[in-house]
C-alpha cells in the first residue's frame, strides 16, 4: 500500500483558483470541507488541533452541512461552548444561535461528541455481543478492565469504533475527527489491523483452544503446558488464566472486529477522506509533524492539508499579513515625525494642542522598536522553518497558515474568528 504515492492527479488537489487566490503560496481551507466527508486532524500537542477541528466542522455547518466533530480533551471552556459538559460520549447538537448576532448564519447543523475510551469500549462490547451475559463476562474481566484503561494504547480502537458508528449510518455530511497528540495518531491507521491480526494469531487460538496446536507447538516440544508455564513465570498463573478467558470471549467477536476494521481501513483511504496535519512553526512541533507527515504518506493515505497555526505575528492593520521587518527608527526622529521635538534628553511639544511628551515616551519608543524587531525575527524564522517543512509535502496538498491569536479559542465566536483566517472570507 505504500506504493500509492500521492499525486497531483488526485481529486483532493485544490483547483488552481484556490491557489491563485491565496497570498504568497498559502491556501485557504475551503476545498478541504467542500470535498471531504471525513477529515482526520492529526498533529503534535499544544498546537490548537482541537480548535482547528471544531472550526472546520463549524464552517461546514455554516455552509449548510450536517457536520459532526468528534473531539478529545478540549479545553474546558471550549467543551462548554460545544455543549460537551456531560461525562458520556453521546452526540449532541451544538447551539449556534449566538452566532447570528455576529452576522454568521448557520445554515446547516453542528454536532459534537467527546471520545471517551472507557465508555466507548464498554458500548462496543455490548454492541458486538448479542448476549448480555457474555458481554457482562467481558466487562467484569480484570484483564479487560486494565486493557480498556490503558488509554495510550486503546484510544485508536475507540476512535475507529466511533468513526464506524457515525459514518456507517450516513447521518452526517462531514465528520471531523480529532486525534490524540503526536505519534500515537498513526495508531489510528495501524491499530485496527493489529487487533485483527492479533486475534488471528495462532497463539491466541492456541491458548484458547490448546488442542488445536499451531506453529508454536512445533517449536515448544512440551506443548501448551510449557508455554502457559512460561507465561505464568513471566507474570502469574492467575494473570494468564484471566487473559485466556478474556481472549476466548473476544475471539467470538473476531468476525465483528474484522468487518469493522476492514470497513474503517477502507474509509480512511476513501476518496472523500482527508487527513489534515496541524502544527505550529516551533522546532519541536515541526519535528513531530515531520514524523507524522512521513508516516501518513508512507501508509498511503491522503495528506490533503497542512495547517500551520500561530505561523506569524500579524501586522497591525491586516491579520492576513505577517508583520514585516522595518528599519528601526531612532526614537527622537520618531518624536519629530509626530510633530514633537526632543530637547536635552526630554522632549517638548511644538504645538500647545499636543501634550508634552515625557522622557518615558522616548523609552517606550525604543522598546516598541525592539518588540517589532523581535516579532519580525520570529516571522522570518517561522517562515523559513515552514518552507523547509513544505518541501516534503505531497504535491497538491493545501498549505494554510493562521496568525498568532492573542487567546486560545473559548467559545463559538472565537471559532468564528478563527474560521475567517482559515477560509476565504465572504
Amino acid at each position: 500500500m505504500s506504493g500509492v504515492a500521492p499525486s497531483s492527479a488526485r481529486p483532493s488537489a485544490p483547483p488552481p483558483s484556490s491557489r491563485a487566490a491565496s497570498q504568497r503560496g498559502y491556501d485557504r481551507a475551503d476545498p478541504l470541507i467542500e470535498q471531504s466527508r471525513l477529515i482526520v486532524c492529526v498533529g503534535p500537542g499544544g498546537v490548537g488541533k482541537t480548535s482547528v477541528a471544531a472550526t472546520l466542522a463549524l464552517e461546514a455547518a455554516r455552509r449548510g452541512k450536517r457536520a459532526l466533530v468528534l473531539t478529545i480533551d478540549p479545553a474546558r471552556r471550549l467543551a462548554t461552548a460545544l455543549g460537551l459538559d456531560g461525562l458520556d460520549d453521546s452526540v449532541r447538537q451544538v447551539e449556534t444561535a449566538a452566532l447570528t448576532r455576529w452576522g454568521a448564519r448557520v445554515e446547516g447543523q453542528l454536532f459534537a461528541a467527546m471520545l471517551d475510551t472507557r465508555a466507548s469500549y464498554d458500548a462496543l462490547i455490548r454492541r458486538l455481543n448479542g448476549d448480555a451475559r457474555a458481554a457482562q463476562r467481558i466487562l467484569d474481566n480484570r484483564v479487560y478492565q486494565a486493557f480498556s484503561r490503558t488509554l495510550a494504547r486503546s484510544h485508536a480502537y475507540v476512535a475507529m469504533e466511533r468513526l464506524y458508528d457515525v459514518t456507517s449510518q450516513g447521518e452526517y455530511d462531514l465528520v471531523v475527527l480529532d486525534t490524540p497528540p503526536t505519534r500515537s495518531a498513526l495508531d489510528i491507521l495501524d491499530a485496527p489491523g493489529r487487533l485483527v491480526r492479533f486475534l488471528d494469531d495462532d497463539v491466541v487460538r492456541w491458548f484458547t483452544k490448546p488442542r488445536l496446536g499451531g506453529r508454536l507447538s512445533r517449536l515448544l516440544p512440551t506443548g501448551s503446558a510449557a508455554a502457559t508455564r512460561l507465561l505464568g513465570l513471566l507474570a502469574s498463573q492467575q494473570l494468564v488464566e484471566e487473559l485466556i478467558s478474556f481472549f476466548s470471549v473476544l475471539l467470538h467477536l473476531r468476525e465483528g472486529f474484522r468487518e469493522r476494521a476492514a470497513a474503517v481501513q477502507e474509509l480512511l483511504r476513501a476518496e472523500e477522506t482527508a487527513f489534515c496535519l496541524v502544527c505550529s512553526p516551533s522546532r519541536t512541533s515541526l519535528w513531530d509533524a515531520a514524523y507524522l507527515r512521513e508516516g501518513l504518506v508512507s501508509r498511503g493515505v491522503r495528506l490533503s492539508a497542512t495547517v500551520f497555526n500561530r505561523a506569524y505575528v500579524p501586522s497591525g492593520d491586516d491579520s492576513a499579513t505577517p508583520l514585516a521587518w522595518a528599519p528601526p527608527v531612532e526614537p527622537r526622529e520618531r518624536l519629530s515625525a509626530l510633530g514633537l521635538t526632543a530637547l536635552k534628553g526630554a522632549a517638548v511639544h511644538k504645538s500647545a494642542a499636543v501634550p508634552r511628551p515625557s522622557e518615558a515616551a522616548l523609552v517606550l519608543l525604543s522598546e516598541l522598536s525592539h518588540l517589532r524587531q523581535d516579532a519580525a525575527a520570529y516571522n522570518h524564522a517561522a517562515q523559513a522553518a515552514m518552507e523547509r517543512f513544505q518541501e516534503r509535502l505531497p504535491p497538491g496538498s493545501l498549505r494554510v497558515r493562521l496568525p498568532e491569536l492573542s487567546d486560545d479559542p473559548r467559545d463559538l465566536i472565537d471559532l468564528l474568528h478563527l474560521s475567517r483566517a482559515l477560509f476565504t472570507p465572504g
Partner: protein
Amino acid sequence: MLTPLSPTSDPFAHRLQLFTGKGGVGKSSLVAALALTAARRGHRPLIVELGHRASMEAVFGQGPIGYTPHDVGRGVAAMNLGVEGALVDYVADNLRLGGLAKLVLDNGALSRFLYAAPGVTEVVTLSKLRQLALERRPEGDARWHPIYVDLDATGHALMLLELPRVLDGLIGAGPLRRLLASVSALIADPDQTLLHLVTLPTELPIQETLELYRQLDRGHKVQLGRLYVNQVPDEPLSYRAVSAMDELSRAAIVQDERELMNDLALARVALRRYAQVTDQLSRLAAEVRIPVVRLPRLATGEVTLEELERLGEIAAQGVMDRGAVDRRAAPDRRAAPDGSTPSRDGVER
C-alpha cells in the same frame, strides 16, 4: 506526599530523573539541555526515550538512537527504550531460560501476546530502568548518572506509577511480584528518584499540570522534583515605557501615525499575553509546593546545542541559586532602563 524537594538542592544529585508533561511542552528540549549541562559538570548523563520517539536524533544529529546507549556527543549518551528489547532483557535476566526465552520471543506472535497483556510493557520498561540505574563501570562507580527519562505523555507516567495497583490481585508470588517490589522500592526512594513536571505557562497545560500534581501529591509514593515552566516570555515593556502608552497613543492618533499605532497595538497584545502568563504562574504558585523553575523562550526554527546548553545552565542555576540567575545566560534579554525589572528566571518558592 513526601517533603517537597528543597529549592536549593543539587539538580544532579538524583540518579533517576523522570520527566512528564503533556505533548508539545518541550520535555525533550529540557531533557537534552539538562543532560548537556550535567555532562559539562563532569557527570555521565544518559537520556532515555521511550517507544519510538526520535526527538533526540533531531537534537544531536548523530544518526539513529537505538536500544543500546551510545555517545551522541558532548559527553551525553542516549538510548531508545523499546519494549521488544526490554522484553528480551527481562526474560533473560529473570527467568534464566536462555535459548528457550530467545526462541519464544523471536516468535512474533507470542511477543504480541505478551505486549497486549496489561502491565507487561510497563513492567519490562521499569525493569530496564532499574538495571540501568544499577549498572556500574569497571572503576566501580555508576555507569550512568543522572539518567534522564523522557516519559512520553502524562498518561504514561501515571500508568508506570499505578502499575502495582493495576496488577494487584493479578500477579502471584512469582518473579513479577519480586521485580515489581524492587522497582517500586527504587521509584519510591527519595534519594535516588525524582519525578519532574514540565509545562507551558498557558491555561490548558497549567490546568492539566495542576490536575496531575494533585493526583501525584495524593496517591503516589514518588518524590516530586521540580516544576519546569518552559517558554516564559520576557516582560514586553518596562514599567516606565508602559506609563507613556496613553500619551503616545494620543499623539499617534492626532498625527495619524499608522506605524506607531500598529506598534502600540502589538505592544498591547504582548502585554495582555504577559498578564495571562503571570496569572497562570500565580495559579501554580498558589497550589504547588514543589520548586517552580521558569525557563526562557527558545528561538523558533533551528535550535543549536549551544542554545540548549544555555537553557540547561539556566535550568540548573535556577535550581541552585534561588532566582539569582546570571542574566547574561538568558538569550535576547534586555535589561529594563532603570534595572527595576524583577528577576523572572529561577525558583519562586
